[in-house]
């Protein structure tokens, strides 16, 4: 590792393209094998009137497995152009996780408390945390978006959105 890399830890590679190619190919290989196996158990023969229910999925699984093996071998031998270089740098991964992790928490919040509260909090927190906005601006925008969504879906288009399985905060304000 050169001194330049140490100077900016954000530029360090977390994982290379080749390693990622191998991991993905292995996952796909496992996926293909599982599909082929479950379909085989379901019946993957050629019946009297054509293929049985598991016939196509079986071969789909087999083809996924075969093509992932080829990609795997290509990655191991390093013959593809993709196999060199960095998949993601530390700084990039931080940025991506800064979006991904709150998004996953957001989906969990939708499940528990419904989309309206979750969206308000999510937008506000995101703006304060990553955008460094004043808290009142963030809350104002969050609430505005939720109210607009409510009007558009529940009132105008009569589409009910998810209300939360633990507690429905809308019941607080009598909606």
């Amino acid at each position, binding site marked *: 590792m050169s001194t330049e890399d140490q100077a900016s830890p954000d530029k360090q590679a977390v994982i290379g393209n080749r390693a990622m190619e191998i991991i993905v190919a292995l996952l796909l290989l496992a996926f293909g094998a599982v599909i082929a196996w479950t379909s085989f158990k379901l019946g993957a023969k050629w019946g009297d009137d054509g293929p049985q229910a598991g016939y196509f999925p079986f071969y789909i699984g087999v083809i996924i497995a075969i093509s992932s093996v080829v990609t795997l071998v290509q990655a191991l031998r390093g013959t593809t152009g993709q196999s060199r270089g960095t998949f993601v740098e530390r700084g990039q991964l931080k940025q991506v996780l800064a979006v991904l992790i709150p998004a996953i928490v957001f989906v969990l919040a939708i499940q528990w408390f419904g*989309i309206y509260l979750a969206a308000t909090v*999510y937008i506000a927190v995101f703006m304060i945390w990553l955008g460094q906005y004043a808290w009142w601006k963030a809350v104002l925008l969050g609430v505005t978006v939720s109210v607009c969504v409510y009007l558009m879906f529940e009132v105008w288009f009569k589409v009910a959105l*998810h209300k939360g399985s633990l507690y429905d905060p809308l019941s607080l304000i009598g909606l």
Partner: protein
Amino acid sequence: MEEINALMHGFSVALSPFNLLLMFVGVTLGVIIGVLPGLGGANGIAILLPLTFTMPPTSAIIMLSCIYWGALFGGAITSVLFNIPGEPWSVATTFDGYPMSQQGRAGEALTAAFTSSFIGAFVAVVMITFLAPLVAKFALKFGPPEFFSVYFLTFCSFIGMGKGSPWKTLTAMMLGFALAAVGMDTVTGQLRLTFGFHELMRGFDFLVAVIGLFGIGEILLSMEEGLKFSGSKARINMKVVIETWKKLPMYWLTYVRSCVIGCWMGITPGGATPASFMSYGVAKRMSPNGAQFGKGHIEGVVAPETAAHAAGTSALLPMLSLGIPGSPTAAVLLGGLLIWGLQPGPLLFVEKKEFVWGLIASMYLGNLAGLIIVLTCVPLFAAILRIPFSIVAPLIIVICAIGAFTVHNAMLDIWFMMFFGVVGYIFKKLDYPMAPMVLALVLGDRAEDSFRQAMLISQGNLSVFFSNWLVGGIMALGLVMLFWPLVNKLRGRA
């Protein structure tokens, strides 16, 4: 002329005030979607689809297809002004569009891009007008074997014409088929690949996959690039427009070439993105000004934009006449048709004349509306890009979540969307193509049904796929496409 009469009738359907309003709303929404990172034609339409269920189908498809035209236009704005392709098909437009705007010729570049888009789309719509009814009439004679052979050709074309590793294309496509197979088997009623989960019984909806793959995946990618928008200002006034329009006829040959490339790539499922690159490459090689390409030459904007729009538009031809979409966005529109109870395919031209011709007429009008809107409102749309990403990103994720939920009113779909988002991010970085995966997910069941129907007819005899010249020819062409990468490799060695 039968088609002209039908088209005139279509105009009378499309020209109602309500439909005209929807057209302008659709195009404006589409341009916004095209400008914003993370929202594109395919997932934008997928998200808005549930909102149109209450409308009459003709009005709904007019609005949705106008969103598509708008998104096609919108991609060019970000390419020229910010060097950020808003859509994959506008990557080639950045090569010359951005240098032009750096030289202070942004207005000229944008006018050229919009006008070329319009011309490309117009030529493609004219082709649809006259060719689609013929294809549909021809396809009325199709039985299950013929339909299967067309599906076969469609999927093999992805492998034969793909740019990256054919093995990755194959993997992505088969993943799509595997996801399509999840749930109840339509022929025997058996449950497949549900692994005992009840929620998986209805299978994966491709709309959810599209929203995740293209929406969330795109947001993650844009975040990684650390989006900093520093673009040039754009002003388009009438003078610039007229000046540019005077120059454009010089490049008529480029237009002809690009339209041919675009229409061809649109009908075969090559799609708008490869069409734009191919057209740029061909124009660079054939043009007398080839050396100036890449330094801000107007022809380098004309060629990719014409082809991208021609391809994007003609992708609707096989969708309407055969029920086989030529692009992910066309696939989403097809999904809409199915939800409204319209079976896309040759019968649509016989049974739902009003709908088909209303849609085709709206393609003419929608693109005209698009041209007017983008030429007049560029500064407004460019301003959208200056909204900081820390506001745009959570908003888009909220919109995607709502879109995924409304497809089936299922909470689980939002989780699937997040999962597909991560898959989309990784696949994009490793060059696994997403278009064949989405099309396989949409068409998987139908391709399997037609295959099994063909097998029922022939009592399990595979030779039915070579029983006459038509089906045999299509199957043979499909096989050629399938093994094309191999042939190419062998030729390269010899």
